């Protein structure tokens, strides 16, 4: 085992185990904080996939932004001082069966399919240059639409969340 494999398995276990804690924990606060580790593990996986810019973006937006929002949401909508912060599950048994079948199908498909794999040796030092070029040429229209979407989301959230 070389270092790449060891680091990969560390991040893989971190991601999947903390995602399991997110899903199966009874306490929603524990779930929120386990989600933090899941996002960090996913960022590490992005680094292993030569996506340094996406990893940084993941850390900034997910860990720094969405996590804080989710924790705010948890604390504003649950009575933290009281005991009622556990969340119940609905129809756990049929959901478990269906989700297990879906996951097993997905995993077996992923493992058994012969993917058209190219040689992954060509490692660029960074992909930021290419990403910026693509964003301003091929993906210019989605890029501009994304800015409008973010503006509308901000206005809509401010409008929805204020009192009266």
């Amino acid at each position, binding site marked *: 085992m070389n270092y*790449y*494999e060891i680091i990969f398995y560390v991040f*893989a276990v971190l991601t*999947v185990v903390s*995602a399991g804690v997110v*899903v199966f924990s009874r306490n*929603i606060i524990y779930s*929120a904080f386990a*989600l933090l580790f*899941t*996002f960090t593990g*996913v960022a590490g*996986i*992005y680094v292993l*996939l030569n*996506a340094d810019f*996406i990893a940084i*973006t*993941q850390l900034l*937006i*997910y860990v720094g*932004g969405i996590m804080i*929002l*989710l924790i*705010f*949401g*948890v604390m*504003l*909508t*649950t009575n933290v001082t009281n005991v009622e912060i556990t*969340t*119940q*599950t*609905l*129809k756990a048994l049929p*959901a478990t069966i269906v*989700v*297990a079948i*879906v*996951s097993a199908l*997905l*995993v077996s498909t992923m*493992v058994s399919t012969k*993917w*058209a*794999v*190219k040689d992954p040796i060509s490692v660029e030092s960074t*992909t930021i240059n290419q*990403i910026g070029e*693509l*964003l301003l040429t*091929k993906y210019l229209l989605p890029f501009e639409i*994304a800015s409008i*979407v*973010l503006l509308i*989301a*901000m206005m809509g*959230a401010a409008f*929805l969340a204020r*009192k009266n």
Partner: protein
Amino acid sequence: MPNFQIGLTHFLVISSLLFGLGLFAVVTRRNAIMILMGIELILNAANINFIAFNKYGQLGVDGQVISIFVIILAAAEAVIALAIVLNIYNNFKTVNADEIDNLKE
């Protein structure tokens, strides 16, 4: 595993597991914020797929650009959804998805 060396399949398996866990959270949890967390897990699984195919497949850097758009939409979705959830909490005093079943109090 067909081969022991870390390859495309390893990353795809991780993303499948994340997708399954996120789907489980979305389907079974009553708390609306837990449902949101499940959706975030599903989006992360999709992103891992995009970036894995960017490295190993024939997708090129386009995969990373698409995952940036996914992250943007996830942020916008989380903001709007949390605003809606806070409004629901103000009106119904609960965020359990199965108790919110009327349009007007």
